[in-house]
């Protein structure tokens, strides 16, 4: 031992080739390879395999059968309803998100932290409990709900309930995305525009909006994906009326329970494609406009 190490040239960091040189702040190549393998394999089994199954089952009886199943009245009405619900709840949420972020970041007032906590609340409430809360408030047995039903404007087991539920589960998305970005950008640009005599609306349109457009798009993308895919809250408030209040996820459940495997998985594949598209656009935004998005992502 002593002799062999004595013979070694001084500049060789370790004995022989068994331990090739590496920086002290890195793991050995073997450890690194094992960690990468565990990560890739784990993700493949946990996440990619379920995605693959959706498409495999949809195409199990050929592409023709899959496409034909999409033309069924149930599938068509579900697609229409889901598009309608997202078409209402996403813009509503975008307006709310911008208004909330503007109020929270451009002004100082008491209770701001509490307001942010309230906006975040829907993330910590189970969608089923959210649906339950809406049923208790707007159901036919409740004070408000009973009156609204008498006026011929039912909320629960109808479109307004589905929209309310979708808005609830996506409530924090846009605001959460905008607030950190707008805090980082500060107020000086808007203040400069105001001193130059621009109106409030003009300041928002020509100064604020260009600064937050990518972050807004990011929030809207996530909001849309969740709104189209929401199941638990919608299952509770919609009443699952076939052809009327059955959104795409609800129809997937119905078809699956009726052993219409191809139909269920084809509709699921449509939603999965939407999810993949959302991911692709989101990733593109993160690459191209990372500086204009908030740094820490949670959703």
């Amino acid at each position, binding site marked *: 031992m002593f002799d062999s190490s004595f013979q070694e040239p001084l500049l060789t960091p370790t004995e022989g080739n068994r331990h090739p040189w590496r920086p002290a702040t890195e793991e050995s190549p073997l450890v690194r390879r094992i960690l990468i393998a565990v990560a890739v394999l784990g993700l493949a089994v946990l996440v990619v395999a379920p995605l693959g199954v959706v498409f495999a089952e949809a195409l199990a009886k050929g592409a023709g059968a899959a496409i034909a199943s999409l033309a069924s009245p149930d599938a068509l009405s579900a697609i229409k309803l889901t598009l309608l619900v997202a078409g209402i709840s996403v813009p509503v949420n975008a307006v709310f998100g911008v208004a909330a972020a503007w109020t929270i970041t451009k002004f*100082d007032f008491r209770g701001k932290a509490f307001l942010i906590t309230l906006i975040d609340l829907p993330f910590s409430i189970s969608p089923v409990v959210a649906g*339950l809360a809406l049923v208790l408030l707007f159901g036919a047995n409740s004070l408000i709900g009973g009156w609204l039903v008498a006026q011929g404007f039912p909320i629960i087991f109808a479109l307004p309930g589905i929209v309310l539920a979708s808005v609830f589960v996506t409530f924090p998305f846009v605001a959460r995305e905008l607030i950190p970005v707008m805090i980082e950008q500060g107020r000086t640009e808007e203040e400069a525009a105001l001193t130059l005599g621009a109106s409030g609306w003009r300041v928002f349109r020509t100064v604020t909006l260009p600064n937050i457009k990518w972050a807004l798009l990011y929030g809207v993308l996530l909001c849309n994906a969740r709104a189209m895919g929401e199941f*638990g809250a919608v299952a509770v408030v919609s009443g699952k009326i076939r052809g009327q209040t059955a959104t795409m996820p609800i129809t997937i459940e119905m078809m699956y329970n009726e052993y219409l495997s191809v139909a269920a998985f084809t509709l699921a594949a449509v939603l999965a494609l939407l999810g993949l598209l959302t991911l692709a656009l989101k990733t593109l935004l993160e690459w191209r406009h990372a500086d204009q998005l908030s740094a820490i992502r949670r959703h």
Partner: protein
Amino acid sequence: MALSLRIQKSPMPGFRLGMGITLAMLSLIVILPVGALLAKGASYGLSGIWGTVNTPRVWAALYLSFRLSFFAALFNLVFGTLLAWVLARYEFPGRRLIDALVDLPFALPTAVAGIALTTLYAPNGVFGSVFKSLGIKIAYTEWGILIALIFVGLPFVTRTVQPVIDEIEREVEEASATLGAGRLYTMRRVILPALAPAALTGFALSLARAVGEYGSVIFIAGNLPLKTEIAPLLIVIKLEEFDYNGAAAIGLAMLLISFTMLLVINLIQIWSRRRIGHV
């Protein structure tokens, strides 16, 4: 920053409009419905709520939901941190694709995930048949529920920990190495403590998500009372029986347990931040 003029009356317009929209929406979407739930609970009374919750079926569902959610979040804590480390520190082919795929559970609707996981892990499914030959049943057992809960909570820890790893200064690791620490020791005593608060946040988010999860679980759970029935399903069942009091009681019990857990996690977080010594 240097010249911050304290303006008494803000020149910025739109406070009334912005605050008006914010409060109106907040009231309609969050405050009134949650208030209705609390009011229902109050009118039902503590004894009423206790009477509903204190039945074997409800206890079994609550215990199942919180126990499996805890284990799923624990799995995600370990695997999510590993994933974040690999994505932040190593360069390998396909890294960016894998980085994007981490978010797939957020983008895939829960009902889609539910039927896909069930098909995959059913006794005749691709993975299910392998487990079946080993004598293990996954779908329609607690294992199936656990897999669904792991799936929906998977991205949280990775997404909270990854930015923190990016921010760790290599100098700290170098200092540790020059002081004679091995890589494993540096990992354990320098890097992991720095990641702990973010990892705990991810754990809490994953846990909260799993406890409330419904769509992906009900397909794979089998939904046997006392065995594989989760708490959110019990709420749906009560609602379908028009037992609004019972549904509200279980909903409130879930909220109470969730918030207590999140409070405890927050306290642990404050404690761990203080121990490490940065804000």
